[in-house]
């Protein structure tokens, strides 16, 4: 190949004319692919507290918390509901795939910065 000085110049002129590729985030919203795996979200009505999600979570960020009791036949059994620590969650979607009642869903929300860590804990599902 012949050695040239400045063989990048023609491309530089072409790039100069085309619009820049920098995305306007945070001034303009970022377009995410609709499969984007962002913040986990739970639907309290559908969640029956079966605990499968706590079992399969690779980072053990789901704990089952006692929320009272439920009647099974004539016996009173303790009812546990999941509490998600989203600071540890890696949005892998393992719990979403294994939830039989599809109460879980990965939203496209990714801005999770908060002042104190406690806001990261999602207690939405802790209802009777």
């Amino acid at each position, binding site marked *: 190949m012949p050695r040239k000085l*400045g063989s990048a110049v023609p491309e530089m*002129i072409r*790039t100069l004319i085309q619009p*820049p*590729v*920098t995305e306007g985030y945070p001034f303009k919203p970022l377009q995410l692919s609709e499969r984007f795996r962002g913040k986990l979200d739970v639907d309290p009505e559908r969640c029956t507290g079966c605990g499968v999600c706590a079992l399969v979570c690779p980072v053990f960020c789901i704990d089952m918390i006692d929320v009272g009791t439920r009647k099974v036949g004539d016996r009173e059994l303790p009812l546990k509901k999941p509490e998600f620590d989203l600071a540890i969650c890696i949005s892998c979607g393992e719990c979403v795939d294994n939830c039989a009642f599809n109460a879980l869903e990965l939203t496209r929300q990714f801005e999770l910065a908060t002042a104190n860590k406690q806001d990261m804990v999602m207690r939405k599902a802790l209802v009777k």
Partner: protein
Amino acid sequence: MILTILQALILPGIAFTITLGLIFEWLERKTMARMTGRVGPMVAGPAGVLQPLADFVKLLYKEEVMPSFADKTVFRYAPGLFFLAPLVSMLFVPVIGPSAVASFSLDLLLIVFILAYATFVVAVLSYASASSFTTVASGRLVLQYVSYEIPLVISIVTPALLVGSLSIQEIVQAQSSRWNLLLMPFSFAVYIVALLAELEKPPFDIPSAKTEIVAGWLTEFSGRALAFLKLSKELGLVFGASLAVALFLGGPLGPVPQSIVPVEIFYTTYFLVKLFALGLLIFVVRTALARLKIIDAAVLFWKILLPLSLAQAFFVLVVKG
């Protein structure tokens, strides 16, 4: 008397050079960004024009940290000296008319001395901050200075040879009919390459190689000192380019139609148009090339540019004689 002081302070003097320096920095960051598909500064001011000023002011009130084993006095005062060099030499370049603010018969040699003085100050300054990065940066700086200095001086002196005088003002006035560039294109090219080396712009940004020695001789500076050092690097570009405009492109001279508009306006616009054209040329070259190794830079200057500038000077002598 007051007029010259005013001129020195405002128009072709300090205020003018500093604003030009800030605009050049914005222009460089914008063009380089656009040529690599990025947006460049866009927040402060319309299209980010005030970004360099914002950076300068922000740095002013940042805390200034001094390394414990640095040489205190040099570390504190050298940045100021380096800042003065381009400002003082800018006074000798005619901007608003064929005559400069200050001029005497040997001011071209004074310019050469100021260039050497500026590099000397930087070398001492980076050695004084005694961190391993800056000491090596100063070693590199001196090695690079030694290689580009002679071709630079020869290419500066060639127009003086043609015109027969060492005053920039007279060189500019002699070019009213024909630009020097037409007679000495090579010394113009050598001057531009040497200017790139002096300002440590790629392909010669070896002393301040980002990926190798963090920020080269700027590494240990912060706060006010860093603000002024960064600004003086830009002023160096403004002065270098305006010197090229004066010596090779006929300074502010150009056809001046009779009209009510004062004649200075035409001269200044001619000067600015040539200056920005030269600036864009430098920015394109800066974006298109990779960084050389110090040995290749030295070889380039000693083996190629030095003989070229000598040949050009000899050619001019023959033509003149």
